[in-house]
């Protein structure tokens, strides 16, 4: 590796002279010697060419041709090539938060449209201009519910994703909130009868999932509004699923949270993703995050600004509704561009083709000797579980060896599961999979 010599530059000497200084060191006389340190151990600089070569070499250490049959909050969906074209526009990607509205209408207009498109899709009143990711959105939703009603108990499905529960738990540190699991039916959907019994005057929020944490579509979410009492219904949903199933607004959710990664954002090993966060208008002043509002300029022309900033940290400081400053603006644009390019036809295709692939995979898996599939009434959407019997513990590792990602042991991913599902494993099939890959997966499974 060749270390580069970086020259000090002529202009710098001019500037130093202007300041009456001899060298850079004169600029740092205010840093006492006893706290000086250097960073030489990170090595010298390199040319772009060397960095590119090295990144290619290291990137190639990943298993780059893995066929992905796994989702669980991170889906390999098709990304139209126009999306990177749009979000890599220099004017978008290299801009800062639009503090000076007049010179930043492009970003503000785009984010206002994001809020509008997601509000239309989810049928919620208001959508903020993004949170970090779905799980932290849940954390903020629980905090927001607590701000709204000051109550203590948050009911979570007993099969909630472990990582979600962990993030929520972190987010409520120091608040007087108790996470309490509620039972689910055999297929992972809400057990309404038992949930009702748990809802009382102390209930701050009820978190529901649709699709459920087993991947099944859950009609039960529609009943929450009748039983929730003073609790805030926090609906966690899959934005792609709304192409075919009802929106959180349809079932009167108070706060709707989703993971937007599916909407035109690459897998990227887990981030950056997009936290979609909507709520009823009456709660807007208790809501976290940034809001873009429409207004007019001095001539009455439509204009967009960041609004209700008095909820935010840079104004309200320790009384702010959240500490969020940097959010996921660029990825919000990616998701609105994605939804606009696909439109109804496209999003329905994505949803339907995923379900069709799931159903095909499912059918073929029945023939794998050690697999038992569940014949539940509520259909799976993109994620699904099957009983992999004695092979369940080693299935994922063996499949990865064969070039397939899938078969994640369900009880290592979910908070609790009943014994009879203890050998269940997760798979998923998005629109990106095809019949031949499904066949190859089955062959690989049979060979294990």
């Amino acid at each position, binding site marked *: 590796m060749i270390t580069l010599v970086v020259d000090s530059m002529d202009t710098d000497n001019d500037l130093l002279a202007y300041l009456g200084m001899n060298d850079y060191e004169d600029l740092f006389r205010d840093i006492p010697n006893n706290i000086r340190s250097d*960073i030489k151990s990170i090595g010298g600089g390199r040319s772009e060419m060397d960095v590119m070569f090295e990144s290619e070499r290291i990137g190639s250490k990943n298993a780059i041709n893995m066929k992905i049959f796994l989702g669980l909050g991170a889906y390999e969906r098709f990304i139209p090539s126009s999306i990177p074209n749009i979000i890599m526009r220099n004017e978008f990607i290299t801009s800062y938060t639009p503090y000076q509205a007049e010179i930043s209408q492009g970003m503000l207009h785009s984010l206002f449209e994001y809020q509008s498109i997601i509000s239309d899709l989810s049928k919620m009143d208001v959508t903020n201009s993004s949170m970090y990711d779905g799980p932290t959105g849940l954390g903020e939703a629980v905090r927001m519910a607590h701000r709204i009603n000051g109550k203590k108990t948050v009911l979570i499905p007993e099969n909630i994703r472990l990582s979600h529960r962990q993030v929520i738990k972190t987010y409520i540190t120091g608040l007087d909130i108790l996470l309490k699991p509620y039972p689910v039916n055999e297929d992972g959907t809400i057990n309404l009868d038992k949930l009702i019994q748990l809802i009382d005057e102390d209930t701050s929020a009820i978190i529901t999932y649709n699709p459920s944490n087993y991947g099944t579509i859950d009609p039960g979410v529609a009943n929450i509004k009748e039983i929730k009492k003073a609790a805030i219904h926090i609906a966690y949903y899959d934005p792609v699923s709304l192409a075919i199933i009802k929106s959180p607004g349809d079932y009167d959710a108070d706060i709707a949270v989703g993971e937007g990664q599916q909407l035109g954002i690459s897998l990227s090993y887990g981030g950056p993703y997009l936290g979609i966060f909507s709520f009823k208008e009456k709660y807007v002043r208790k809501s976290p995050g940034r809001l873009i509002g429409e207004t007019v300029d001095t001539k009455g022309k439509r204009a967009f600004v960041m609004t209700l900033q008095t909820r935010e940290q840079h104004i309200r400081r320790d009384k702010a509704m959240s500490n969020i400053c940097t959010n996921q603006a660029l990825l919000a644009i990616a998701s609105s561009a994605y939804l606009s390019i696909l439109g109804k036809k496209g999003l329905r295709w994505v949803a339907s083709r995923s379900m069709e692939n799931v159903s095909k995979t499912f059918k073929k898996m029945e023939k794998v000797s050690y697999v038992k599939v569940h014949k539940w009434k509520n*259909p799976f959407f993109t994620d699904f579980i099957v009983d992999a019997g004695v092979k369940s513990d080693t299935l994922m590792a063996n499949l990865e060896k064969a070039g397939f990602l899938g078969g994640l042991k369900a009880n290592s991913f979910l908070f609790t599961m009943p014994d009879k599902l203890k050998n269940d494993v997760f798979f998923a099939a998005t629109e990106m999979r095809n019949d031949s890959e499904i066949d190859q997966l089955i062959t690989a499974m049979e060979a294990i």
Partner: protein
Amino acid sequence: MTYHQAEYDEKYIKEINSENSFSCEKIELPKLDDSIAQDDLKLPEIAENDVVRHYVRLSQMNYAVDTGFYPLGSCTMKFNPKFADRIANDSRFARVHPLADYEYSQGNLQVMYELREYLKVISGMDAVSLQPLAGAHGEFTSMLIVRKYMEDIGETGRTEIIIPDSAHGTNPASAAMAGFSVVEIPSLETGVINMDALEAALSEKTAAFMITNPNTLGIFETDIKEIADMVHRNGSLLYYDGANLNAILGLTSPGSMGFDMVHFNLHKTFATPHGGGGPGAGPVAVKSFLEKYLPFPRIEKEGDLYILKSDEKDSIGRVAGFQGSFTNLLRAWAYIKYKGSNGLLLNTQRAVLNANYMAKRLEPILNYHHEGLKKHEVIMSTKMVNKRALDIAKYIINKGVHAPTIYFPLIVPEALMIEPTEDASRDDMDEFCNIIQEAVLTPDEELHKMPVNLSIGRADEVKAAKDLKLKW
């Protein structure tokens, strides 16, 4: 000079009158019960062609580092090298599923591991979590660590965080979010810590003192060692807000200064693009005695293999759905490799040189108190010339240059917070100074009409908040 920003009467995307051109095979919708089936899917229905045009036109109505000088103080808008974008979009990195086992994601894990090691050297700390998703998220994570540590050592009575009145708003917000009370102490006029006020504020209730050094006025706290000793003697922790790390990188480090913990803003220090608001990434580094509290999973190396470890025992928990804002970590990794120790040091030297140049140029008109060395940014006040900072800002943007941060730090009246960064050319800086000079000489009634060269005139922010319209 003539300048005009692109101006289009751009419609709402849903109002564009064209037709969905997305190409897909016909497929039957799954049969679902009416009670659950979507009955009104509302999405824009327009041609892809028009979607691209819409965003191209909107983008032209947006200022960015790649359109011009961007001296937005504290936000550190430097050039985002394009090779980092190229690496971030490389499918070798970008197509890896976050739940793939470590054997199949060694490349990504190596990047994270190497970045972690770099950040340790740069911060002078012993351990790093790459999980926090933005700077403020890193602050929140750190405050949870403070809390957990204090609980662990039985100091549950330490419920206060002391913060100078010059601090970034995220500091008090993050402390509060972690359940602390915030005790604000006044700074001296230069923004330097008032040692007497600090001493008075420190008590058995103090969990930590949160500061940034140089402070938000761009002044280095020369007494930082004494401050650290004072805080530690009190049994409290000292937190470094990494927003200004770029001012000292390579010359000193939070570790050398006596801090116990620090968060990084990768976009400020390592040139990851800010995307008009995000995504960011806010890794946290701590001294060894705090390591066990870091979020899980953590990256480790076992033999030649990089692994993710989920030891929950003492951890404050998980703060993100997966491993963090990976592609931003990747970009920062590439940037550090490219710049190296010499390049990063030169960044610091030039950023500080440029700030001091700006300070001296602007001194005759807008100087605010402090006469000595500046670090990476310089605070001016338009009160000196009886102007409103807002008016000056609107004059500047009208000339096609982004305005400095205004009205921050809060302790400076009519503040302009100017940060040229190491990338500013002499031309950029001189032109900016000239614009400031012109602005100051412009009568108020003229200033109030600004901007006129942008895609809109001055926006009515009061109406926005009053007649709330948050969707079309």
